[in-house]
């Protein structure tokens, strides 16, 4: 039986991953610096002061305040460096840059489905362009899964009933692992597949191999009509409902006086539980679509509402979308 070569270190496909590696190596250095003296002292003391040895045992110390403060305080401060380093990386991972390529991930037992903005769909694989920030908007149809990309040193749990997001910028084209990291039942270990980073050119070529007739947003638009949303939200509707053009990503004033950012989660909630966050100035007449729209259709509707933001920006006079220099 031939053994596959050992993998002692995971491949890295982003600057972030390499920084995590740097962090780990320095951290390991510190840990050795803390652990080795303790273990060495244990061994040396145990041998030197073994019963019957004639080592000097005069005035054995029994306590020492200075010593206690030193050997707790100094290692603690040293490890705090890594607290800040790791916390800083984590916080940066929290705020995606502008203009990300948004890909929707819908997980279910036991597969990950990805929907690209152009309408391309893949299962258990994720193709992304190198050098461009990608943002995954993820949800699950059943239990909790976790989207794990070891080559990027990133993972994020995928929950039913809500969106979680993960962004990254891969820079090294290649094929890497995609795994499910949260235990999700029988085929948990088989859930996952390939994570493929392509050069922008190859990515474009890859996208073109699909014969899709509609983008995600266009599919959403069709749904928007079919489900009757346009009856209220359309331009010529009789019911008094807010226009959805341009809301995406903008602050929305609510009837209870609070203000929320209209992100994917908000749009999703507005469709499923319209009464929970009512837009200021409107009556709560929108019916709940709970149980009538699957996760994948929701993704399309959300993409459509998001596309309305871009559309309104395009419709505005050229230049107006760009902030004037201050």
């Amino acid at each position: 039986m031939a053994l596959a070569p050992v993998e002692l270190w995971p491949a890295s496909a982003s600057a972030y991953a390499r920084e995590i590696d740097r962090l780990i190596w320095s951290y390991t250095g510190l840990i050795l610096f803390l652990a080795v003296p303790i273990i060495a002292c244990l061994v040396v003391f145990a041998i030197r002061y073994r019963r019957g040895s004639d080592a000097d045992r005069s005035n054995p110390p029994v306590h020492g305040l200075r010593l206690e403060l030193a050997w707790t305080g100094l290692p603690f401060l040293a490890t705090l460096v890594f607290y800040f380093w790791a916390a800083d990386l984590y916080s940066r991972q929290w705020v995606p840059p502008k203009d990300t390529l948004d890909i929707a991930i819908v997980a279910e037992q036991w597969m990950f489905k990805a929907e690209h903005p152009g309408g391309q769909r893949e299962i258990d694989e994720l193709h992304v362009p190198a050098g461009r920030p990608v943002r995954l908007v993820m949800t699950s149809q059943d239990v909790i899964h976790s989207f794990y990309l070891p080559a990027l040193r990133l993972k994020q749990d995928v929950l039913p009933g809500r969106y979680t997001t993960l962004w990254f910028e891969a820079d090294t084209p290649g094929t890497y692992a995609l795994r499910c990291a949260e235990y999700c039942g029988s085929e948990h270990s088989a859930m996952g597949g390939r994570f493929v980073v392509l050069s922008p050119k190859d990515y474009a070529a890859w996208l073109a191999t699909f014969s899709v007739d509609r983008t995600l947003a266009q599919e959403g638009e069709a749904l928007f009509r079919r489900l009757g949303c346009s009856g209220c939200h359309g331009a010529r509707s009789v019911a008094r409902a807010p226009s959805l053009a341009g809301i995406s990503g903008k602050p929305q004033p609510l009837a209870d006086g609070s203000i929320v950012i209209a992100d994917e989660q908000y749009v999703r909630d507005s469709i499923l539980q319209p009464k929970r966050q009512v837009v200021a100035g409107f009556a709560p007449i929108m019916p709940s679509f709970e149980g009538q729209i699957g996760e994948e259709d929701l993704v399309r509707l959300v993409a459509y509402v998001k596309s309305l933001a871009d559309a309104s920006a395009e419709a505005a006079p050229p230049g107006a979308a760009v902030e004037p220099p201050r």
Partner: protein
Amino acid sequence: MSIASADLAFAPAGEQQPSYLSAGHSLRSWLLSTDHKRVAVLYLVSVTGFFFLGAIAAALIRLELITPAGDLVSDDTYDKLFTLHGVIMVWFFLIPSIPATFGNFLIPLMIGATDLAFPRLNLLSWYIYVLGGLFTAYVLLAGGVDTGWTFYTPFSSLFSNTHVVAAACGIVVVGFSSILTGLNFIVTIHTLRAPGMTWFRLPIFCWSHYATSVILVLATPVLAMTLLLVVAERVLGLGIFDPNKGGDPLLFQHLFWFYSHPAVYIMILPGMGVVTELVTAFAKKRVFSYAWVAFASIAIAFIGFLVWAHHMFVAGMSLYAGLVFSFMSFAVAVPSAIKVYNWTATLYKGRVSLDAPLLYALGFIGLFVIGGLTGLFLASLAVDVHVHDTYFVVAHFHFIMVGATVHAYFGALHFWWPKMIGRLYPEGWAKAAALLAFFGFLVTFFPQFILGYAGMPRRYHAYPPEFQVLHMISSGGAGVLGLAYLLPFLYLLWSLRWGAPAGDNPWGAAGLEWRTTSPPPRWNFAARPVVTWEAYPYQDMPKPEAARGD
């Protein structure tokens, strides 16, 4: 102040009192005894049984993982194996291991009392433990449970079609047994200390059991309620954690870890108490900075309640929560550090005898340092994002739970065995077993750190071939480890009959438990002890060389 050796003994002078072991030999005399020492032996037997059950599951897991393909058992069986392994090892072995056996046996002896405050309650907790065990046995026979020991919803509440309800009920039941034991310890330590046994004369073992008991009493009920909610969801169709009904699966995780993080300190604090006793007894020196070591236990118990969400850094929590819980996890390392440094300093200028219990204790310290410091890796936000739910975590907790606590358990077993049964174990075999356990352990679990960082997720029945070599090493180590656990089992049984008589104080140790006969009489001491010395008065004791005649 110097103590004459006669003052040290509260052993019966002249005529010998019958030992607790000879107070009846019928099964009934054991099953109905409220003697804390007999209850401790009942626990010892049942806990050992569960340890072997959990170990068999571990052996099957390791055998399965020798090859990348899932070829030994089916995926569902594998899931049941690690769930059962985790559930049994955590709730039926490790949590009761040291407290319910050695705590039970020793706390009254150490504080100079005749029994625990509520002896009948003590026996009752054992029966409750057995009842919980019966639930688990039922689960085993009926076909198992596959949720992982963490019972995450909505998998456990809506999707799993195994025996979740019975398993959860078993854990709730055994939880009540822990609660009652903890309650008993707290009351005993508060009210039954012998005259002169002030708080600062208590052995550190009692301090750490006190801290453990506080966690048992305050955290376990939260677990009980959480699991009952899961049961209600499965049986009645309630929706507390059901996202389809507006419930929040993360609420489950918060509640579960609010218990389970403090619970990991339930698993380590008693071990820390044991190691303190071993280190002082075998260095023949007072523990370095008694007060710091004592208060460190309390600090661990207290801060331990404030770090639970470090298990949820990628679960979808807010950034702010992540920053706070990460920081608190760094803070909880400080009292652990105090303990480690003070143990090391206790050896300095001591009179060290490298007997088997000390070998186990030294193994504990070394492996705990590695396990604890890798806990700090996990507590660091960006690092945890990568290694969460990988073998890195598996290695971290086995280093502490197996490398540290199980070693402490074996150390305690060897150290107090002469006191419990009145006979010595074979020292040579014991040293060999201790060394074997240490090295077997390292071979089993060190490769798992590398596996985890390389991206091998946990709870994987089959895995990519590039991880095979490391998994094979790990399985090989597990074989050695299994042998190292089997050995003591055999020679301790052997010593029951053929071991040399131990004498009252074979180690020349200072605790009150060594100042009565081995095994102790039914009411522990011939005369009520009056304590006039500080803890660990080794500097005032007769030279240890004289005390042990080997």
